[in-house]
């Protein structure tokens, strides 16, 4: 395999780490020893519940925050060491799209000025006049060049997200980090924006790090899915593999939670799969830093079924390769015994 476009190598990020020595300060390990690669033209999803660290990891990749440990490589070069001109070049390579389109733009500036910023900052002359370039950008994302003089509030949520995509595209990036870009939108508008992402990927060969808690959107857009739970990667797998043979108990739980349009009994499956009301994230669960073993054990149905094996409490499971290109961080997950089999049969019926 050729060198990946992006490698995340053992990245951790702890909020409040710098002040941790002061008494009474608490730190929060948002991302905990995560490694992941994205190939050129590949689209990878980060999924997980809120507080799983997916946004933090995305911001690390976009170099909006510097991780407290580990490094990020683009084309084999350590991003952390970049500065000045090289850093600007990196910013042209990797761009970010945000979830909340109301807050992602300065409300007092016209779209023309918002879209011109990247060119100004990078000192790039637009090929045939700036206006032509900006108009073309808007048209590429399905808006009209005549909208350049509007203000952000004059657009609908879906249109504003298109402007966000246009801004990210302006410098010809190779990787886009999209943080929940469609979750604030209506279902039918979501479909339009997802289609736009799919088209841009095909036309421009973009790589994508797509952060979402919506497995349906993720399945449509991304070839590989990485599942985060409280800052740690618990499973990375090709999309079909994850859906049909989820290995980690948490992945199974996530898949079972997807509201179904298939048979009603998917509700029963999720009931069987979920071990009673789960502790709310961050409140009841032990902090990952404190847990030496598997941080999912306290919620894990497999752990309960196996009679609370000592190993889950004592030893942190490493991400290990499994069949079909999957990797899973669980001591006991095997493909053999599979409550997930029910889930996948329901899911495939729905497709048929």
């Amino acid at each position, binding site marked *: 395999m050729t060198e990946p476009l992006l490698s995340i190598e053992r990245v951790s990020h702890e909020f409040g780490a710098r002040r941790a020595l002061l008494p009474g300060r608490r730190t929060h390990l948002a991302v905990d020893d995560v490694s992941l690669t994205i190939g050129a033209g590949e689209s990878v999803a980060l999924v997980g519940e809120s507080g799983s660290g997916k946004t933090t990891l995305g911001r690390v990749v976009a170099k909006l925050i510097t991780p407290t440990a580990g490094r990020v490589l683009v084309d084999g070069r350590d991003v952390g060491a970049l500065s000045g001109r090289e850093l600007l070049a990196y910013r042209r390579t990797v761009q970010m799209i945000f979830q909340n389109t109301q807050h992602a733009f300065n409300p007092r500036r016209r779209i023309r000025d918002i879209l011109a910023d990247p060119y100004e900052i990078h000192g790039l002359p637009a090929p045939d006049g700036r206006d032509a370039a900006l108009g073309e950008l808007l048209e590429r994302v399905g808006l009209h060049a005549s909208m350049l003089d509007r203000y952000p509030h004059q657009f609908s949520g879906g249109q504003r997200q298109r402007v966000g995509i246009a801004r990210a595209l302006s410098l010809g990036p190779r990787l886009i980090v999209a943080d929940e870009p469609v979750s604030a939108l209506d279902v039918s508008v979501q479909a339009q924006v997802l289609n736009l992402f799919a088209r841009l990927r095909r036309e421009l060969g973009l790589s994508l790090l797509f952060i979402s808690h919506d497995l349906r959107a993720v399945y449509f*857009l991304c070839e590989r899915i990485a599942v985060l739970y409280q800052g740690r990667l618990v499973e990375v797998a090709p999309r*079909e593999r994850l859906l049909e043979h989820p290995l980690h108990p948490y992945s199974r739980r996530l898949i079972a939670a997807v509201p179904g349009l298939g048979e009603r009994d998917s509700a029963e499956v999720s009931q069987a799969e979920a071990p009673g009301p789960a502790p709310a994230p961050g409140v009841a669960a032990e902090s990952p830093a404190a847990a030496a073993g598997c941080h999912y054990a306290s919620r894990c149905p497999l752990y309960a079924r196996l009679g609370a094996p000592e190993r889950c409490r004592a030893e942190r499971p490493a991400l290990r390769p499994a069949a079909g290109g999957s990797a899973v961080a669980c001591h006991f997950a095997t493909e053999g015994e599979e409550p997930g089999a029910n889930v996948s049969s329901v899911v495939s019926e729905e497709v048929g």
Partner: protein
Amino acid sequence: MTGDQPLLSVRDLAVEFGRGTRVSRPVDGVGFEVGEREIVGIVGESGCGKSLTLLALLGLLPSGGRVVNGSITFGGRDLRGADPSVLRSLRGRQVALIPSDAGAALNPVARVGKQLRLSLRTHHPDLTAQQRRGRALDALRRARLARPEQALAAYPHELSGGMQQRSAIALGLQNEPRLLLADEPTTALDVSIQAEILRLLVQLRDELGTAIVFVTHDISTVREICDRVVVMYAGQVVEQGGVEDVLTSPRHPYTAALLGSIPPLGGVPPEQLETVPGMPPDPAAWPGGCRFQARCRRFTELGEPDECTSTWPGSADGLALGAACHFPLEGVRR
């Protein structure tokens, strides 16, 4: 539904805002019924009038909004013409609202327990402080809060999003209302927590017999919990019926398009998802005929028939089952 009178019956409901030349009618002829113990979903995109319909039922329209037509009957009583004091005595007691953003709906400077007790004191002035505390605790337990005693003493910001939503549900439930109006109760939540809250609503209906009106923009959640579904577009009901019927063989092109825009989970993903081109019409100037016509693929396919632009294909009171369409889809099983 049985032959008995439904718990809630809404007919030909219309809501207007503005005066003079800028009158808009975001809810225009909505009708549906909710039976005892029934869960009815109202689905539609933002701006279709689904939330305003809900607020109109409670007499809680934002300022400037007024019900200009139709009837609202709850438990045999007319709510539209009811005195504000009558509505006040019903709200929270017999009909309760669960808001979409519980974090914003709870009072940030009062402990959860205090907010629960305040509502109890309003509706049950005869209870002692001790009894009120007990009832509040029960309600939190019923909403499946992991540690109800702690939640009682907590301020809303100290709770996670899921726990805030459970507290709001407890607040709605503690007076054991006959009807619960849930306005997008899960949209602010994660998928896994969303699934838990949906399951909780079904459990509560099963245990307490509370009927629920569940408003959402996400048609896939409707399948999880609702018995019947009402699909709204541009202030009107475009299709209603049993959940299985409507979601497995939608008759209205809009319902079909909504379902088609949900990315399929499994198999080889399509190159493009189905979308509805264009934007919904402006409530200040509804077009004549079928309001969906300008975005309807079927209209184009059939060679733009005149009926679609001239006559509204629905029923007068908005109550009819099936699709409000001149040329409904036939037996398309999804």
